[in-house]
Each structure stands twice: as structure tokens, then as C-alpha cells.
């Protein structure tokens, strides 16, 4: 999801800002500023649209704030533009006073175990993208014809996936989950989801609200092993007690101190049938606790493995210094190292963790840094910069047509219209070609 925002001074030129909330701040702060956003897809909002779980619609309310900003006279959305392919960062820097990259983290941390390529092994990002209607994942076709799914990872993404797999259909069918996913889930035979993590209960990455939702999910009992909690009873005062519901036919479980060694194939050698886990023990405590091997392993039978072990940013342009070890753009407080007028924000700047509020606050920080540089003269406003005019001309010459914010709103209306017929807030368009056809109709 490539999103870059351009920020323009009417007298001087343009700045590119990458985060929509960032842009919220700048047009208000200075009236001689114009913001241009460049986004690869025809639709805006990134992970708020494609990452937030369908049963968390309130979290998506922030879209209203984004939309308000987008309606500002000095803000322009340029969808369907792939920065790094259709246009280079250098070309943007020539046309604008400042360019801000905040295209997030599109890649996945690799499991690096044998069997990772078997059919039935998915990255969390692809699985979430599938039920959230991301065009890149529409042909995923996960086979839910198995009884047990193992999710590696215990963060909020893992919890979301587990919850979607086991939620009663009555609840899901009123959300903006795609029809395709709904139909697959309706035919699902999955009855048990196990979330496997390297360390112990005190190191779990998921937050309390999501853990609560898991334990309270109708029709599903929580499958937690008492031995996992030996010696840390005091620390568990805040966690709700799992309620045993004998009539619950489904189970959502957590397994601690296990790390994947190998994904095991079935008889045909092509499809996943199980996973071999190394048993760990914890050394140290709190955030710094380390999981060390004990030498023992155990095998779990399962028909699907979903890797939810973290995202990773990818470099999109060789002109931008990238730190491959931390998988972020090299920067100091958002100022990209070694080059003036280039900034980064959000996950690309700090790494791919945190909720919307975290990234939003980070955007405001980036905006403040830019404003500081403007006032200090570090950004030279005396040079005239042509901005979107030049970029649009270049794109046109290359056969690229943009999608404006009002054209996105046509896509939006169409999705809402289709959703109404199905009793859902929207039915997302899955196909970029279809989005463009609606946008330019």
C-alpha cells in the first residue's frame, strides 16, 4: 500500500506527506501550504480499510476525520499512482519542497522453516487482506476444510484472525467482510484455532480488549493450559477468567513457549498436515525475557498455518536510504538521512507496531518536524516548485491516469449501495479494474 502525500506551498512549491492524518495538521497550521497524496490503489485509507477487523467498525470512524481533511481546498488525492514505478522519488523531490514517505510495511517477516511453501500456509497479511477485500488477495482461496488452524503469533492481528475464523456467521454477515470470505466461512469445518507463541503469558503482544473478545466469543470456549500460568497468578489479576461452556463446540486456544521448527506435509507432500514445535523455556522476565530451547519438540495436527509474526517495510526506490536490518528508511526523527527535503512517517519510520493512535501521534510529530524545518529555513522556500502540475503531466505521458478524491467517493457510494442490498455497511469492490471503471464513469 503505497501512499505518499505531497505538500505544496502556493508561492514556493510542494511537499509530499505520506500520512493522511499528518495532512490533517498541515493545511490548518499554515495557509500557504497545499498537500498532495499519491496512493498506489484507487482507494485511500490503507490499513484502516484493509487491516482493521470487519467486526471493529468503530475503529474505522477515523475515516470521517480523514475525509474532512480531504475536503480541504488545499488537499488533493492522487490514487492509482505507484511511486517507485510510475514516478520516482527523485522526480517528486524535484517537483516539491518536501516529500514524506509513509507507505507502511508491505512485506512479511519470514518464518524461515522448511515447509513454509506448502499449500495451506499463509501470511497473516494475506489472510486479513483476503477477508478485508484487498485486490492483491482476492485469489487466495484458503481451504477451510480442516478442523484445526494454527496461528503463529499472539498479537492483535493473530487474535483478529482467530476471532474471524470462529465468529458466529450471524455476527459477521452484518459487517463489511467480503461476500466471498463470508461464503468460505459458512462452509468452514474449522472448530479449533490455536495461537502459538515463543514466550510466556506475560509477553503476549495482544492487548487486553482483544483477549477479552476472544474469551467472550459466543459458541467458543477458551482453551488455556493451567500449567502455563504456574507462578504468575498475581500477574493475572487483570485477565478475565475463562469461562467453561460445555455446550461450546468450538475452541480458541493459546499455546506458550513454542516456536516452529518445521511445517509438516501430508501424504501428498504438497499440503500442510501439521507443525513441529520446539518447546522453549523462559529466561529473565518482563519485556526482555528470552525464550531458550529445551531440546524437546512436539507435533500438532492442523490443516492450515497462518504466520502472524510481524510485518516488514520494503524499499521502493534505490534513491532512498534503507536499513535492511531494521527494515525501515534510515532517518533521524523522520528526516531521511543524507538528503534534504525527504521525510518518513509511521511504520516506515519506526517499525511496524502500534495501533492507530500510535501512528497518528507519530504523524503529528512528523508534521511538527516539517513545520520546524520550514520556519528554520532548512526547507528552502525561495525556490519555485511546480508540484502536482508537473507530476500529473509526467504521469499522463506515461499513460497513467489518476483517481481524485471525488472519484474515490463514487467508488465509495457504489460499495455502500451494493452493501445495502446485502444488509452490510458496504460490499467492497475487489478488482482494481472495476474500481477504475466506477471512478471514471
Amino acid at each position, binding site marked *: 500500500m503505497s501512499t505518499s502525500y505531497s505538500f505544496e506551498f502556493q508561492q514556493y512549491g510542494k511537499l509530499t506527506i505520506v500520512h493522511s492524518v499528518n495532512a490533517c495538521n498541515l493545511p490548518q497550521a499554515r495557509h500557504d501550504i497545499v498537500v498532495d497524496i499519491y496512493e498506489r490503489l484507487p482507494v485511500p485509507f490503507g490499513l484502516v480499510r484493509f487491516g482493521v477487523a470487519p467486526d471493529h467498525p468503530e475503529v474505522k*470512524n477515523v475515516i470521517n476525520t480523514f475525509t474532512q481533511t480531504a475536503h480541504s481546498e488545499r488537499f488533493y488525492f492522487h490514487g492509482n499512482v505507484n511511486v517507485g514505478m510510475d514516478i520516482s522519488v527523485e522526480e517528486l523531490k524535484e517537483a516539491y519542497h518536501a516529500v514524506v514517505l509513509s507507505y507502511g510495511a508491505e512485506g512479511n517477516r519470514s518464518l524461515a522453516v522448511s515447509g513454509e511453501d506448502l499449500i495451506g500456509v499463509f501470511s497473516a497479511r494475506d489472510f486479513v487482506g483476503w477477508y478485508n477485500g484487498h485486490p492483491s488477495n482476492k485469489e487466495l482461496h484458503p481451504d477451510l476444510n480442516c478442523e484445526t488452524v494454527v496461528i503463529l503469533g499472539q498479537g492483535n492481528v493473530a487474535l483478529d484472525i482467530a476471532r474471524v475464523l470462529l465468529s458466529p456467521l450471524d455476527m459477521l454477515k452484518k459487517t463489511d467482510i467480503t461476500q466471498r470470505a463470508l461464503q468460505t466461512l459458512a462452509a468452514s469445518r474449522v472448530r479449533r484455532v490455536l495461537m502459538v507463541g515463543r514466550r510466556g503469558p506475560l509477553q503476549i503482544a495482544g*492487548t487486553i480488549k482483544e483477549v477479552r473478545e476472544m474469551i467472550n466469543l459466543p459458541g467458543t470456549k477458551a482453551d488455556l493450559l493451567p500449567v502455563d500460568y504456574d507462578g504468575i497468578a498475581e500477574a493475572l489479576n487483570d485477565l478475565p477468567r475463562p469461562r467453561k461452556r460445555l455446550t461450546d463446540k468450538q475452541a480458541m486456544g493459546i499455546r506458550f513457549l513454542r516456536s516452529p521448527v518445521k511445517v509438516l506435509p501430508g501424504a501428498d507432500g504438497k499440503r500442510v498436515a501439521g507443525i513441529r514445535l520446539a518447546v522453549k523455556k523462559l529466561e529473565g522476565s518482563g519485556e526482555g525475557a528470552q525464550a531458550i530451547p529445551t531440546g524437546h519438540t512436539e507435533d500438532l495436527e492442523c490443516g492450515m498455518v497462518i504466520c502472524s509474526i510481524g510485518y516488514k517495510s520494503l524499499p521502493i526506490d534505490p534513491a532512498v536510504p534503507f536499513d535492511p536490518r531494521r527494515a525501515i528508511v534510515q532517518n533521524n526523527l523522520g528526516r531521511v538521512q543524507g538528503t534534504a527535503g525527504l521525510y518518513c512517517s509511521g511504520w516506515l519510520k519506526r517499525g511496524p507496531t502500534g495501533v492507530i493512535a500510535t501512528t497518528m501521534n507519530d504523524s503529528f510529530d512528523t508534521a511538527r518536524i516539517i513545520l520546524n524545518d520550514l520556519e528554520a529555513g532548512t526547507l528552502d522556500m525561495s525556490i519555485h516548485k511546480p508540484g502536482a502540475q508537473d507530476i500529473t503531466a509526467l504521469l499522463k505521458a506515461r499513460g497513467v491516469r489518476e483517481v481524485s478524491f471525488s472519484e474515490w467517493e463514487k467508488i465509495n457510494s457504489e460499495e455502500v449501495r451494493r452493501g445495502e442490498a446485502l444488509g452490510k455497511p458496504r460490499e467492497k469492490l475487489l478488482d482494481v479494474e472495476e474500481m477504475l471503471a466506477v471512478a471514471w464513469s
Partner: protein
Amino acid sequence: MAVRACAGLLRSSSGFCSLNQTFRFQLNIRTFSTQPVCHSRSSSQSKVLLHFVNQNGMKTSVTGTEGESLLDVVVKKNVQIDGFGACEGTLSCSTCHLIFEDSMYDRMETMADDEMDMLDLAYGLTKTSRLGCQVTLQPWMDGMTVRVPQEVKDQRDVQETKSKQ
């Protein structure tokens, strides 16, 4: 989630956002509150004077109405706080995090689990922190000072980059 939805109350007000005068629908969910929800148009409700202190120490004084939440006040009176109320009062974020004086905090009703879960994720959390969308104005809050939290992570970032150089 179905649990929250059944306790919801849908309200609409005009002129919520002074940026471009758009109509804004706000979903106000109070799952465990025993405080009555009052319509702000009632003239018999008391006015409550509030002082908001932002991160730079600047003070803004506004008047709210008994029964409104602090989120309502910030929006209606256009108090300038970055990104305040992103989830529009549905207990899905922590952007309306505010810090209260001890004496005020102690008189407030205890927090429900839902609010605590979200507040846990807020920056600059203190012992007298609450989410503004869950605090309803009462007459005894007249003259109350409310602080916008500092962003602790700024300092951590500075430390991080310094140690890497």
C-alpha cells in the same frame, strides 16, 4: 461488537466541526455509566466552566453544559487538540485521553473495563487519566482544569537515535 451496540445511543448535532461546517454523526456508547444522558439543548442544565491546558502550557477556557461529555465540549467548542476523538466516542481508541486534578479525579465514577482497556494504550498515562468521551460534565466540575497529555514517546525516540549515532 454486539455487546456494545445494544447499549448505544445515536445522536446528531449540527455544527460539530467548525472546519467546514459539515454534519457529523456521533455514536455515543456508555456501557456501564449510571449517569443520565442529557440533551444539551435543555436550558435548565448548568453551565460548567472548563480550562484546557495544551502540551505547550497554553490555556483555553470554554463553557460546557451539564450532561455533555468532554469529547462533546472539545468538538463543539473547537478546542485545538491534535487528533482528538478519532473513534468518535466508541471506546475504540485513546485519542481523547485527558489528565485531571486529583480532587476532580477522585470524585469521578470508577472506570469500566472497556475504558480501562483503551486507556492502557494511551501515551503519557497518569494516575488521574481518563478518556474524555467517558467523562460527563457535572455541576461540581465547574472551574475544572484539564491537561492534554505529553507524548512520552518523543523522548524515547530522541534517546534511541542518539544511542545509534
